[in-house]
């Protein structure tokens, strides 16, 4: 697909902010500039959207496979095993996002569960969860962010 959609979005954002926005009244000028920034963010997300969701889903399944042996709740362990065996047959971003939401909801349950356990295995899983939470936050980071 040429021109590349990312490039198009960057050009559109620049055009909107540098050429169109200054011609507008103050409020509309600010709105147009914000839309330009949004297009810049979309351009950054466009290229990585499927990859970062697939990476994260894979990482969460690996974490669940490891955690299933450590949890003390049989029903939760079964759900972790089931989730760990899943996959991403549909590579559309919307489908990957829906699966990601399911996996992250299960991650919250797992995290709360292992926080209440005293075992060494639970501490290892908890540390693995924190590491994944840091990585997942960094995956979503956009260049425009001030922090």
């Amino acid at each position: 697909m040429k021109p590349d959609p990312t490039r198009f979005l960057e050009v559109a954002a620049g055009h909107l902010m540098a050429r169109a926005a200054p011609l507008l009244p103050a409020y509309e000028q600010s709105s147009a500039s914000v839309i330009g920034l949004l297009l810049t963010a979309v351009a950054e997300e466009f290229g990585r959207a499927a990859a970062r969701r697939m990476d994260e889903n894979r990482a969460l399944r690996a974490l669940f496979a490891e955690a299933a042996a450590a949890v003390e709740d049989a029903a939760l362990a079964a759900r972790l095993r089931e989730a760990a065996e899943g996959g991403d047959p549909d590579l559309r971003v919307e489908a990957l996002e829906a699966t990601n939401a399911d996996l992250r909801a299960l991650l919250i349950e797992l995290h709360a569960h292992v926080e209440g356990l005293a075992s060494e295995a639970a501490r290892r899983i908890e540390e693995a969860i924190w590491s994944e939470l840091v990585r997942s936050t960094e995956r979503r980071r956009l260049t425009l962010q001030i922090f």
Partner: protein
Amino acid sequence: MAAPVPDASHAELASRLESYLRPRFADADELAVEQLERIFGGASRETYRFVVRTRSGGGEERRHLILRRDPDGSLIETERAVEFAAYRAFHGTAVPVPEALFLEEDPEPLGHPFFIMEELRGFESSPQAITQPPYAAHAARLARRKWTILGEIARADPKALGLAERMEPVAPEQCHERELAYWEARIDRDEMCPQPVIRAAIRWLRRHPPPPAQKISVVHGDFRTGNFLYDAEGEIHGILDWEMAHLGDPLEDLAWSLNPVWRWARDERAGGLAPREEAIRIWEEASGLRADPEALRWWELFSSVKGQAIWISGAREFSTGRNQDPILALSSWLMGNSQDRAALLTLGRLP
């Protein structure tokens, strides 16, 4: 600067404003609303500036005013009467605020409830501009003024200000739980995707409750760079956006002001102005209170929960079409992720 464009909705709003103001300027023989212009930002209320021109006897007077009108949907659901009362209470004190003039809770005059206050003119409020010339050279003075004023808010007696009766009371040992329960409920209601970082933060906050508040203060609720008017000499002329004001632990405001998501200079300075320890020192000196490190840490992590709740609510407003101001989408994307990073930093998890 481009002149305000008089579109049909503005013309109608100006006309309705004239009808509302006429009986309130009873001495005027003539009254006209001019130069009505919407101001960008203020995601919780629509904000307009306008001039009211009155003629009485032989003289003409022009007053520059601000209209804050409730929108259909917003980032923050707030009680406008409390915001109005806060402006009134602090006007003329060590905490600079514009004079609040009229509060109207009946939606009939302008379609939604609103209030009107004076416009403080000729000052800057942009959080980006404060890190650039000519303002950046005065960062140290701006920081001193910013956290001194916040200390003055913390020091003030809510009862003496007349705000104790206008704001929901809270006991010193209940401040933290009330605020956490409120913002957690907002996340429960509005989240559109799971929030594992903020859920972990909420559980941590519940396991590590802070000590009771040293005193019950007025909490501004959104005291940060971007919500005050400043000049090129490093003076602050007005504290704005009191829509989340309430009674509570004064550390809540200090923690919010220190949150990393407000690091506009893209370095470690709080609010883009001063090192964190310097900001705390100024606040302690002005307030006469102590910022206990462990208690402050609790409130700093809480501030990320509250911040995330606000970005989540904005995302829902935008997604459902209730309010499609693009700033809601942008803040949800950028600030939402920054807020998770801030929570991880406070928890000692960010490398």
